[in-house]
């Protein structure tokens, strides 16, 4: 189930600068430092776990290939060497076992951060996440809790085919008791992962793997710029917390609100630029809890709303967002809410760029809502 495929080669073909995927590059593990360094997403996530492991002996990390080797995407690189074998270790290829063990550890009083190698492999752990972790506090009247983080590389755009590209967030946002966090940049990735580890409830933390090495904007035939040119890649080496449940306004605008998360944040920015429309782009950052205030204020200001996500349309999180906006902003809307999403098909390999919502589709949707909809 956990076979490796050469993603980094695919990334390089897409123009990622080789130094951003150099597996020998030391991760940012200056947990006690106070400086700021340019980091890619991988380094920022690594730094978050490192910071927490350094300050709290109850934090430990495990997953398939996540120990000595540091994970197939290197997010847990060198944590074992730094913190020891019993704090960062390899797990059997058993997603159910990984999450169940984490639940048991959480009930004991630890704060495990486990890695599911790809979000596409999370389903064997689904019962443990949904029936156990999510309901632990509630069903035990608060006697037992599940302060665990389930991290998982997520989303498409890396030629991973249907088993390395899925976006299953709505299978988790539907479950009472879970929090669902999806960062779009290194700064938020670190601050949100630290917040997730400190959270007393179970957090499903999806890491858009197309963003690991650069802010991919969906123009797949163009070279991808590396993170280091971005303000949001200037990451403090020490500890900071980004609150779970607060959205980030990535671009202020007056004509239309775009709600997005993960890779689609960058696609949305590119789509707005391409369309030449003054869009307000909101990075939701966490889907549960959701920053409804920021969404509501923005849509009431712009009167229009476009929702963008990679996951298939039907029962996707965009449906929930659309309903919320309609319920709360109906009399402010100038046009029907539009959704730009993955199609209702399994994730295809050869047709990746037909499936993957790109800037052109976003631009088309923006133009459509600006003219009053279909």
């Amino acid at each position, binding site marked *: 189930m956990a076979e490796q495929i050469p993603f980094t080669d695919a990334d390089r073909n897409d123009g990622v600068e080789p130094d951003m995927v150099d597996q020998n590059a030391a991760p940012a593990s200056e947990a006690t430092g106070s400086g700021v360094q340019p980091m890619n997403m991988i380094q920022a996530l690594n730094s978050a776990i490192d910071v927490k492991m350094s300050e709290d002996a109850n934090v430990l990390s495990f997953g398939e290939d996540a120990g000595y080797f540091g994970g197939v995407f290197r997010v847990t690189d060198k944590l074992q060497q730094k913190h020891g074998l019993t704090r960062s270790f390899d797990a059997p290829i058993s997603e159910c076992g990984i999450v169940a063990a984490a639940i048991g*550890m959480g009930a004991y009083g630890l704060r495990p951060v486990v890695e599911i190698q790809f979000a596409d492999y999370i389903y064997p752990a689904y019962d443990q996440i949904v029936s156990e972790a999510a309901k632990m506090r509630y069903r035990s009247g608060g006697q037992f809790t599940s302060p665990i983080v389930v991290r998982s590389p997520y989303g498409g755009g890396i030629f991973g085919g249907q088993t390395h590209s899925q976006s299953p967030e709505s299978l988790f946002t539907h479950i009472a008791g879970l929090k669902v966090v999806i960062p779009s940049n290194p700064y938020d990735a670190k601050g949100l992962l630290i917040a997730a580890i400190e959270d007393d409830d179970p957090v499903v933390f999806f890491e858009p793997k197309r963003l690991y090495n650069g802010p991919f904007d969906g123009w797949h035939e163009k070279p991808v710029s590396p993170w280091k040119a971005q303000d949001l890649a200037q990451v403090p080496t020490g500890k900071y917390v980004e609150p779970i449940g607060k959205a980030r306004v990535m671009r202020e605008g007056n004509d239309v609100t775009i709600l997005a998360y993960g890779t689609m944040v960058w696609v949305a920015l590119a789509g707005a630029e391409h369309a030449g429309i003054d869009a307000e782009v909101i990075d939701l950052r966490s889907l549960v809890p959701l920053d409804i205030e920021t969404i509501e204020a923005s849509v009431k200001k712009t009167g229009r709303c476009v929702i963008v996500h990679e996951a298939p349309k039907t029962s996707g999180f965009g449906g929930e967002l659309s309903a919320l906006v309609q319920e709360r902003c109906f009399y402010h809307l100038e046009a029907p809410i539009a959704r730009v999403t993955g199609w209702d098909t399994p994730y295809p390999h050869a047709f990746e760029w037909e499936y993957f919502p790109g800037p052109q589709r976003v631009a088309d949707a923006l133009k459509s809502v600006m003219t009053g909809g279909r």
Partner: protein
Amino acid sequence: MNDKLSQKNSRPLSLRVPEPSGRPGDAPDFTHLSMDPAGAVERPDVATTPYEMRDHAFRLIRVLDDEGQAVGPWNPRLDPETLRRGLKAMILTRAFDDRMHRAHRQGKTSFYMKCTGEEAIAVAQGMLLSREDMGFPTYRQQGLLIARGYPLVEMMNQIYSNAADPIKGRQLPIMYSAKDYGFFTISGNLGTQVPQAVGWAMASAYKGDDKIAISWIGDGATAEGDFHNALTFASVYRAPVILNIVNNQWAISSFQGIAGGLETTFASKAIGYGLPALRVDGNDFLAVWAATQWAEERARSNQGATVIELFTYRGAPHSTSDDPSRYRPGDEHEKWPLGDPLDRLRQHLTVIGEWDDERHATALREAVEQVRAAGKESEAIGTLGQSRPSVKTMFEEVYATEDWRLIEQRREVGV
């Protein structure tokens, strides 16, 4: 197709579906059970490798013989007071079950599950281990709470989902949670608690603690992937955990052969994972005690997990929603060759001169009184629907802190 087969000179395949040895109307047939006489199975040193002791997965550890004497190397040599406490806890468990089963029939609750015939398991293990250790039970280990003196009235409050329910009316009756008594919140989804017990034990080992975990799963649920994931993790990380399989022969209406029990023993599942296995007469209080003690010593001395198959018989229906007369011989429980755990411990105590009919009658009366008193107290608070926690609590403890959705929805309900 047949033409093609005959051309190939092959015989047609046939599908085997296992069937139990008896169905309603049949006489119970236990000839397929192989059982060692009491005292016959040797007791290996706890440091024995799983490979060296693999035969234990196919034997049956018994201490009490047909005359009620404790015999052989597994005799835990318990003092009479411990034995009497065990018997009284089993009597109380059965009295509690009878009362609550009746309460269901009287419409006082929606659901109940008895553990008739399996009392020795949870009672012995609950007495032996500390409440600092964590037990990850199924729905048939109420004896654990009762043996540890958990208030019966709290159990009833949970069963009635009344205003004093410790878990606030959120769970199906009997899905208790009692952290202070070493009793993990019962899931109801089968098998999920076993790998969690392994994780809890790993945490204890990681912290250099001295606590161990113990879990239970039924014969039927060993078919769940969670069970096998648990064994892998327990073996790989040498987790200090006791992994019990309560083989009570029936998973609702499916006999243990549907879970693979005809091909091998449930204890033997451990062998492939490199874990030691003990197969034990679950109706023999002393054998359960001794085997658990062996596994406990192994876990506490950092030698890892043990799988124990507790061979028993589910005397009662699966639950109040079940009718076993539709799928198994009516008198199969009565004829069970390993008897009844209460009768057998009573016989033993009597044989060694530490019990008699009068004391037994007194113990029964006291148990019924204790249950009745608790029942009165709980019913005064309310049976199902008569009283319940505040509706406001429905929205609480979904998260550590309610988010806006729950606050808005609570307001919508008007609480």
